[in-house]
């Protein structure tokens, strides 16, 4: 029974850690399927987290915080879009630039406005997302096996967590069952064909970039309004890159993204819980190894040793209409 209890706790923290990864990886899915690579997920999430923390504190409204996060993230996406779609600059360089600008300005502005060492002031319950308790969660808690599963694992998460998990089938539906999704995927594989059909490649890619901004904004808001009570300096701590790794690990498919993010989230939760624990047979696993494991797995996958990850064909290439 103790084992089961541990399992529930581990699963619950996995869900918590995975939430921003899922949102950010889905964000990356939209732009990359449209042929715009984005290594600026990290920066957008960080900027959104800062905006959410700041505005939620000033207005004491969690909704305003979320809106501000989405707004900032979309604006940053548009900068990336302007550089890589309109100006046909390098998408990688633009993403790197955005990550730096955000990393620096969140600290400078936070320090100038609040003077708390780059933090935003701690939020009260009004400024944060509460936890949703599913119906009857308390009543069934004592039921063996199913009770803890329902009230411990399924219930009691932030609304954004439920949103993140709902976004997985929703993204699948948008990408694979709507006209917009079909065109979006086409523009990432063969923009010339889309152009020939009389559809604007530029506008389509901008819309994809905006979708990315919205999802990254929610991911950032989750960090500062739900997982924590406010923004702290550099709080994304590489989550944007883990999400990028998950996106590749998932071979750019929505369903796989869910599992990749849960896997990487589980590794993280596991590493925190079993730090310094001696396992039978293998002994102590260094915590650094557990931290590096998502990256190592992605490298191995990219090298084609476990399946083959094939990126969208037109990814990273600016579209030039032949004159």
């Amino acid at each position: 029974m103790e084992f089961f209890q541990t399992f529930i706790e581990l699963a619950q923290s996995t869900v918590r850690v995975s939430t921003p990864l899922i949102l950010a990886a889905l964000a990356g899915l939209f732009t990359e399927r449209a042929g715009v690579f984005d290594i600026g997920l990290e920066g957008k999430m960080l900027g959104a987290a800062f905006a959410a923390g700041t505005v939620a504190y000033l207005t004491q409204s969690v909704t305003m915080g979320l809106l501000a996060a989405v707004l900032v993230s979309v604006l940053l996406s548009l900068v990336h879009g302007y550089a890589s779609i309109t100006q046909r600059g390098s998408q990688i360089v633009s993403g790197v630039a955005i990550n730096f600008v955000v990393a620096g300005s969140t600290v400078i502005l936070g320090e100038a406005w609040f003077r708390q060492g780059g933090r935003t002031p701690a939020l009260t319950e009004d400024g944060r997302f509460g936890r949703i308790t599913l119906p009857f969660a308390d009543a069934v808690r004592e039921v063996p096996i199913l009770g803890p599963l329902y009230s411990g694992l399924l219930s009691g998460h932030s609304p954004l967590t439920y949103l993140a998990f709902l976004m997985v089938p929703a993204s699948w539906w948008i990408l694979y069952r709507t006209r917009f999704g079909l065109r979006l995927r086409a523009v990432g594989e063969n923009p010339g064909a889309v152009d020939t059909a009389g559809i604007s490649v530029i506008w389509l890619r901008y819309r994809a970039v905006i979708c990315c901004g919205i999802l990254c904004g929610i991911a950032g808001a989750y960090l500062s309004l739900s997982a924590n009570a406010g923004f702290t300096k550099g709080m994304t701590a590489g989550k944007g890159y883990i999400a990028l790794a998950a996106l590749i690990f998932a071979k750019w498919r929505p369903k796989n993204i869910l599992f990749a993010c849960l896997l990487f989230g589980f590794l993280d939760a596991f590493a925190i819980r079993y730090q310094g624990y001696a396992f039978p047979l293998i002994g102590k696993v260094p915590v650094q190894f557990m931290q590096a494991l998502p990256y190592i797995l992605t490298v191995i996958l990219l090298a084609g040793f476990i399946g083959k990850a094939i990126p969208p064909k037109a990814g990273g290439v600016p579209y030039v209409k032949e004159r």
Partner: protein
Amino acid sequence: MSVPYAKLPAWAEYGLIPLVNLAVAFLISGLVVLIVGESPLEAAYHMINGAFGRGEYIGFTLYYTTTFIFTGLAVAVAFHCGLFNIGGEGQAYIGGIGVALACLSFDRVLPWYLLFPIAILGAALFGALWAMIPGWLQAKRGSHIVITTIMFNFIAASLMNYLLNRVFKPLGSMSLETRTFEAGGQLPKLDWLMSIFGLSVGSAPFNISFLLALVAAFGVWVLIWRTRLGYEMRTMGHSPAAARYAGIKEARIIVIAMMISGGLAGMMALNPIMGEQFRMQLDFVQGAGFVGIAVALMGRSHPAGIIPAALLFGMLYQGGAEISFEMPSISRDMIVIIQGLVILFAGALEHMFRPTITRVVLALSPKTRDVAATKGA
């Protein structure tokens, strides 16, 4: 693909356009300073004064410059081969192992001038090996170099954290660093060079690895523009198809270019480890690998551009420290913003002002216009 822009004279191509891009980056940084409620002009004054106001300040500026020359060259060499090496950070970090091993083994036996070459080899070797894996994966398995090098930065950080914790940390010590090196592991300062100009280096760690950086810059110029290997790398960077057609072995060139790039990044470790701290500390690279991207973009991947660009960033780092001392609301994170903006405007948006500049330059000099016309704009 059609050629979108008329050819500009060299002074505009390599002088005017980077300067305009840089100016815009600084203007926006100035706006951030205004938002914070400080005076941009005052900040600029403290920046320049803090970077060049005294011999000691200049020493610090050149110390940072040394670091950025190495990482800038590393990014540039890979650029010429059409590869974007974001992994300079990790390669420099791993390069530190080579320096630390050399110093920990021989610092009590050898004088610095015998140990220095061993440490250079160690740094370059470890950096090159760390870059070789992504290079090999790109060449043989087709995995994207950008993603792999990003992943390798994180793997390097975890690996070094582990090594410093379990291997390099002396018994009984709490902080994550090696023991302090003896005299053999300490590079001499370049105070003689400073005193030629009547300046004193003071406590600045401006050391002999600066000269090594200049030699490396010259070496990169020779390599890229004066050797067969460099020619092959540039061909590869311009057109992989043409390179393949010419019988250039793609995989070999990619792996070699990445190893040279990683070796240069690794050599950066000499400067902080043997030149300043005399020990290897956790996170000693401090983002210098990423600054290399900005430096290479600013310097247009040419050593003659990289050295001034590295000096510019050296000035930002040293002057930025001074600003944060004089104006507490502007911390050193300001440099990170400027760095990001330089990457944005000199890199991703490098063509934004080009049409306007081209029009102005061509309108002003009729001679250039004729050249442009005959070359078929």
